[in-house]
């Protein structure tokens, strides 16, 4: 027995292939959407993994430092370092802001870190690590910066000395790493106009500007422009110690909250990504329905075009299930081409998306199964039409 479906496809192969291509692009979009979701989860995981931390210590009653703003004193880490079970503890700051290069600026998350401590990027793809204590930066390749370029963050110019990859915030903004002190200044020191304004206000306040106390005004202005806050302390727990146990110890300090890696994962994925995940889920459902409709329509049209042949086939003795099988095979063939084209397209255009698109092999397998099921269901419309054909119509008149 020959394959009727195969012969039919071969006969009008260009139409079939073109339809498959179109369907494939639609499936590719579906894969990409799923990849965007996976990418968002991976962004969050990468953010947590790359920090090298086991615990995140933040302001009490906040879900910081990523989900909520958190501000703690920069000397808190000393106390934490002294606790048993703590191997390393370091200050970090995070602030999403505009970073200028020449006349353009891009949105980036500026991270303040201490060299050799949790918070420093683990690996580079170009350049070197920061060696000077100020005004050097390591940027993610997604910023578009090159090694050697000068960028401006708030009040100072920084030289990009190294590049990293996959260092993004949970919002997808690329990261720029600078020394902690520079980052503190960038985050907490206001612009010149605001500072001048502040100084004037302080100077006109008679309680603060006392002629009888000559150094008072200067000391107050100095304390106003000083910045001794950070967003979080990253803690690495000593070998063999329980993260949760150390975190509990830290929480007993009344003004601090500590999250373990699992809790941070939960915060990022359940809270930050949840809405986007739902949105993407809806898109996936809609796209699947659209794909199913398209396959159903195409196969139905192809079947209708063969109604007379189907009547003849039925009359001369072809079984119903042979005809149904032909239609089903055509639908599955279309799905196969669509899947292959879709997977290839998604892989090719994935890197050009502004957000990270992660396509897992498991997703491809699941996608294949879904495409096959959808095609099977979509073919039922045409199969029903084919089965309803009365073979007697072949005998005209």
């Amino acid at each position, binding site marked *: 027995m020959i394959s009727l479906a195969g012969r039919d496809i071969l006969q009008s*192969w260009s139409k079939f292939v073109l339809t498959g291509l179109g369907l494939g692009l639609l499936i590719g979009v579906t894969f990409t959407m799923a990849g965007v979701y996976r990418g968002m989860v991976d962004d969050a995981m990468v953010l947590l993994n790359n920090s090298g931390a086991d615990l995140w210590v933040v302001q009490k009653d906040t879900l910081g430092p990523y989900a909520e703003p958190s501000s703690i004193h920069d000397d808190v880490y000393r106390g934490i370092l002294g606790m048993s079970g703590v191997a390393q503890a370091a200050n970090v700051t995070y602030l999403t802001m505009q970073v200028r290069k020449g006349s353009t600026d891009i949105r980036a998350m500026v991270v303040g870190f201490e*060299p050799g401590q949790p918070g420093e990027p683990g690996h580079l793809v170009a350049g070197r690590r920061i060696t*000077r*204590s100020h005004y050097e930066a390591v940027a993610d390749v997604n910023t578009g910066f090159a090694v050697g370029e000068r960028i401006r963050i708030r009040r100072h110019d920084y030289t990009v000395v190294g590049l990293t990859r*996959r260092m993004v915030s949970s919002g997808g903004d690329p990261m720029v790493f600078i020394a902690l002190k520079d980052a503190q200044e960038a985050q907490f020191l206001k612009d010149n106009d605001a500072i001048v304004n502040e100084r004037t206000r302080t100077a006109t306040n008679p309680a603060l500007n006392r*002629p009888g106390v000559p150094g008072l005004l200067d000391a107050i202005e100095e304390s106003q422009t000083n910045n001794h806050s950070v967003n979080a302390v990253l803690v690495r727990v000593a070998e063999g110690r329980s993260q949760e146990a150390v975190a509990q110890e830290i929480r007993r300090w009344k003004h601090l909250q500590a999250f373990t890696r699992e809790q941070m994962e939960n915060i990022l994925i359940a809270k930050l990504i949840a809405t986007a995940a739902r949105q993407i889920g809806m898109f996936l459902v809609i796209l699947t329905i659209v794909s199913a409709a398209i396959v159903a329509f195409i196969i139905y049209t192809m079947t209708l075009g063969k109604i007379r042949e189907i009547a003849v086939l039925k009359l001369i003795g072809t079984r119903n299930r042979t005809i149904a099988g032909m239609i089903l095979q055509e639908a599955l063939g279309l799905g196969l081409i669509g899947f*292959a*084209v879709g997977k290839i397209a998604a*892989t090719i255009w994935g890197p050009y998306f502004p957000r990270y698109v992660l396509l897992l092999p498991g997703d491809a397998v699941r996608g294949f199964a879904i495409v096959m099921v959808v095609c099977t269901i979509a073919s039922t419309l045409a199969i029903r039409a084919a089965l309803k054909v009365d073979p007697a119509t072949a005998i005209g008149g």
Partner: protein
Amino acid sequence: MKIPLTLPRQVWFATFGVALLLALGWVATRSGPLAPIKVTITRAAKGEVGPALFGIGTVEAQRAYLIGPTAAGRVRRVLVDVGDTVKVGQLLAEMDPVDLDRRVASAGAAAERGRSAVKTAEAQARDAKSRQEFATAEARRYMDLGRKGFISQSVVDGKLQEQKSADALLAAAEAGLAGAQRDLARLGADLGGAQQQRDNIRLYAPVDGTVTSRDAEPGSTVIAGQSVLKLEDPNSLWVTSRLDQGRSAGLRVGLPAEITLRSNPRKPLAGKVVRVEPISDSVTEERIAEVAFDRLPQGASTGEMAEVTLHLPAISDALLVPNASLRFRGAQAGVWLHVDGHLRFAPVKTGAEGFDGKVQIVEGLKAGDEVVVYSERDLKDDSRIKVVSSLAGKTK
């Protein structure tokens, strides 16, 4: 299904199908999580590393002077302005004397009066002295006469009593003189004080220098200790530099320095460390060093930001790797060794690091070892890798 080769349709379709399958296969193995991780490699080599320290600081004057009155008053005139060069002893400003002149005059008059009082007291003392001498002589004579029985005892007693009273009057007059003299001294001191106070309203330059600030204008009231002018010695400018405590090993007096002023970043100036402050900043965790200019720059202003690079002696024949190849497992630094196509994490001990990113390896590697420099992702012991020549980023 037979595919006869002569039919072009089958060939076209088959070609398409095969191409699709190949593309699918390529996609599966080349990208995504299954693909090998791209890395770049370099060899550890001996070389010279020039460690250096970096800090930022502000240009400040070694010594700054606050010129102001010692008592509250009103400013009468200010003779110099910001930027003027002054010499030591030069009159810079003057406070309003108010009633000080009159007080000096009154003290002078009082002193004059005191002098007259002294003269009067002296005359009185002389007078009392002469009376006392007379009374004493008289008393002697009468005692003599009394002994000879020429006069009655009561007359003698009377003369003795006169002598005593004359003595007392003399003592009193002398005391009065002493008092008047001390009074004169006091008045003299008062006068001196009033004069000095009046002199203090004149503000003189204590050293050669430049006026950096004019804080009170004529007519404004200032209290004791408030500054009217600020002065500093422009030749005493240095850069107060702050260096991270953790990265300040080797900081000592005499280190050669490169100073880059914010106002002229393209022309670094030479200098050297002249003092390392014994007290560090424990809040910001910084050490403070004073770096003097070898040659004072023109037009430098205090408060200007500067970047300071201190060069430590270079270490030659050190085993060097790029610092991008350092990875951390917990607190342990190490590198990924590339041996026979496999990776192995080798813990190392680092030494000095230069600003160019080369870091000295003291322990853990030998010359010629291949280490991973850049990698697309974090590496693990069993990661599949693919060595490429460069990963990303163009150097400008």
